[in-house]
C-alpha cells in the first residue's frame, strides 16, 4: 500500500502513490482558497437576495430591489431625454429660422447630426452626404424636392416612393421599354439633355441631332422637367441643366435612364426616427450644404 515520503524541497508529505513517476504532495489547501470561496459565495448570496435569481417552477425570485433590466433601461432613456430637454424642447418647438439663427443650437445640431446621419443615411447618401449612383447628393444646391429645411424634413418623414401613406411619388417613365420613343429618338434626346449641362457635348454631335433631340424633349419631357429643363420640385423631377447627376451623365447612363425609366426609393423615417431627430437631420443637412464649397 501507499508509503508516504517527504518531499525534500517543500517538506510536505506525498500521498504515497506514484503514477508513471508522478507523485502528489498532500499539501493542505492554502487558506486563501477557502477564503475566496467563501467571499465569492457570500457575494453571490447577497446578489441572489437582491436581484432576480432563482427559478421556482412557473415563476422566479424577483429580488428585494425589484430590479428588472427592462425597467432600468426604460428609466435611463427617460432620464437621458429629460437631461437633453434643455435643448430638445427648443428644437422641437422653434421654427427652423430661429434655430438656424442661434449658434448654440446649431452647435448641438452639428454634434448630434453626425452620428444620426452616419447610422441612418450615410449608407445611401455616403459618409459625407455627397451621394452616389442612384442616391442623390445632399450637399449641393440642386434639390429634387426643394432645399429649404421644411421640405427636407418632409422628405425625410414620408420618404420617396416609400410605403408611407403620404409618400412623395416620383416616376421617370420608361420611354424605350414601354415603346413611347424609338431608339434613335432616345439617342437624340439623350445627347440633347447632356448638352444642356456640358457644352463639350455640343461639339461632338451634329447640330441636327441636337435639334431632333430638342424636339423630342419638348414633346415628351417638359411636362415634368419643365420648359427649360430646370426640373420641378412638385414632381421630384431633377434639374437637367446642372452638373449634378443622380444616375450618371455619360451617354450610356442617360440613355439607360430614358430607356428604362427610374424610380428611386427613399425610405420613410416616420416610424423609425422621432420628429426631433428628423428636424435635426434637416438642419444638419442645410448646415452641411453651407459648409460645403
Amino acid at each position, binding site marked *: 500500500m501507499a508509503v508516504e515520503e517527504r518531499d525534500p524541497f517543500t517538506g510536505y508529505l506525498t500521498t504515497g502513490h506514484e503514477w508513471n513517476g508522478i507523485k502528489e504532495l498532500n499539501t493542505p489547501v492554502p487558506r486563501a482558497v477557502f477564503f475566496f470561496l467563501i467571499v465569492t459565495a457570500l457575494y453571490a448570496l447577497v446578489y441572489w437576495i437582491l436581484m432576480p435569481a432563482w427559478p421556482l417552477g412557473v415563476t422566479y425570485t424577483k429580488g428585494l430591489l425589484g430590479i428588472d433590466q427592462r425597467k432600468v433601461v426604460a428609466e435611463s432613456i427617460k432620464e437621458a431625454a429629460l437631461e437633453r430637454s434643455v435643448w430638445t424642447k427648443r428644437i422641437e418647438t422653434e421654427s427652423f429660422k430661429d434655430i438656424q439663427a442661434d449658434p448654440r443650437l446649431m452647435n448641438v445640431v452639428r454634434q448630434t447630426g453626425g452620428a444620426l446621419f452616419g447610422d441612418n443615411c*450615410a449608407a445611401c447618401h455616403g459618409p459625407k452626404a455627397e451621394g452616389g449612383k442612384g442616391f442623390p447628393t445632399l450637399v449641393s444646391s440642386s434639390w429634387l424636392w426643394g432645399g429649404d429645411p421644411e421640405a427636407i424634413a418632409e422628405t425625410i418623414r414620408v420618404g420617396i416612393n416609400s410605403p408611407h401613406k403620404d409618400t412623395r411619388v416620383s416616376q421617370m417613365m420608361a420611354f424605350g421599354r414601354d415603346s413611347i420613343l424609338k431608339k434613335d429618338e432616345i439617342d437624340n434626346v439623350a445627347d440633347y439633355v447632356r448638352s444642356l449641362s456640358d457644352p463639350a457635348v455640343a461639339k461632338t454631335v451634329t447640330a441636327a441631332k441636337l435639334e431632333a433631340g430638342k424636339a423630342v424633349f419638348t414633346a415628351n419631357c417638359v411636362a415634368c422637367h419643365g420648359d427649360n429643363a430646370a426640373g420641378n420640385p412638385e414632381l421630384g423631377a431633377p434639374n437637367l441643366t446642372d452638373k449634378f447627376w443622380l444616375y450618371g451623365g455619360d451617354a450610356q447612363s442617360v440613355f439607360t435612364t430614358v430607356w428604362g425609366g427610374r424610380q428611386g*426609393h427613399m425610405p420613410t423615417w416616420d416610424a423609425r426616427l422621432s420628429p426631433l431627430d428628423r428636424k435635426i437631420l434637416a438642419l444638419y443637412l442645410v448646415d452641411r450644404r453651407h459648409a460645403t464649397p
Partner: protein
Amino acid sequence: MNIFRLHYRLERKTIGFLLAIVGVASIGGAVEIAPLFTIHQTVEDAPDMRVYTPLEIAGRNIYLREGCYACHSQMIRTLRDEVERYGPYSLAVESKYDHPMLWGSKRTGPDLARMGNKYSDEWHVAHMTDPRAVVPASVMPPYAYLGRATARIDDLGLHLKALRTVGVPYTDEMIANATADAYGQAAPDTPFAEGVTKRYGEATNVRSFDGKVGDPTELDALIAYLQILGKLTDAAHRPVAAAGE
C-alpha cells in the same frame, strides 16, 4: 479532512466516479434551461406574430449558409446606447420561430434585428454586390454571386414541414403552396403573388427584390429576409415595460 477521505475512496471506483461527474455536471443546465419552458413570462405574448414566408425561409437559410451571424447580431440589448442606435430592445417572442436563433456574439457589422424596411431593395442589391461601393469603410465581403444564383425553392414544402415538426405553426395549405408562394413573392405581376398575401397577410412584401424578373435569385430571397427582420410582430414597439407583466 473528511471530504478528502471520501474522495480518496471515490477515486478508486471507476463507475462511481463517472456517475459523480455526470451528476455534478447536470445540475446547472437543468436548473437554468428547464424553467425557460415552464415560466410563462419568459416569452412575451404577441398575437400579431406571423411566420416567415417560404421565400424568407430560403433567405434565412442563405444568411445561415454564408455565416452572416459571424459578424452581425440580431439582439438589441437592454442598454441605452443600443436602444438609441438600433431601436427598441429585442424581445424573446421576436425570435420565437427562429430555429435556430441568430442572436450572435460578435458585431463586426451592425446589429440587424431592426433591419426590415430600413433601407431600400436597391440599396441592398448594391451593398451585397459590393459593400464598398456604397459604404467605403466597410469590411464586409462582397456577395455578388448571390445575384447570379437561382434560389432553390422546389423543396421549400419539406422545409416548412420540418419547421412545423419543431413547432412553427405552418398550415397544410402553406406547406402545399410553399414553392408557388416563394415564386410569387418575388413576382408581383403573376397569379402566384396573390396567394402570398392571402396566406401570410396583407403587409407581406411582394415585389421583385433584386429588380430582375424571372425565377427568384438567392439575392431575392436574402433581401426578402432582411426586409422582414424585426417586422414579424410589433410587440417590441408597444410599451412593454418588464418581463413579468
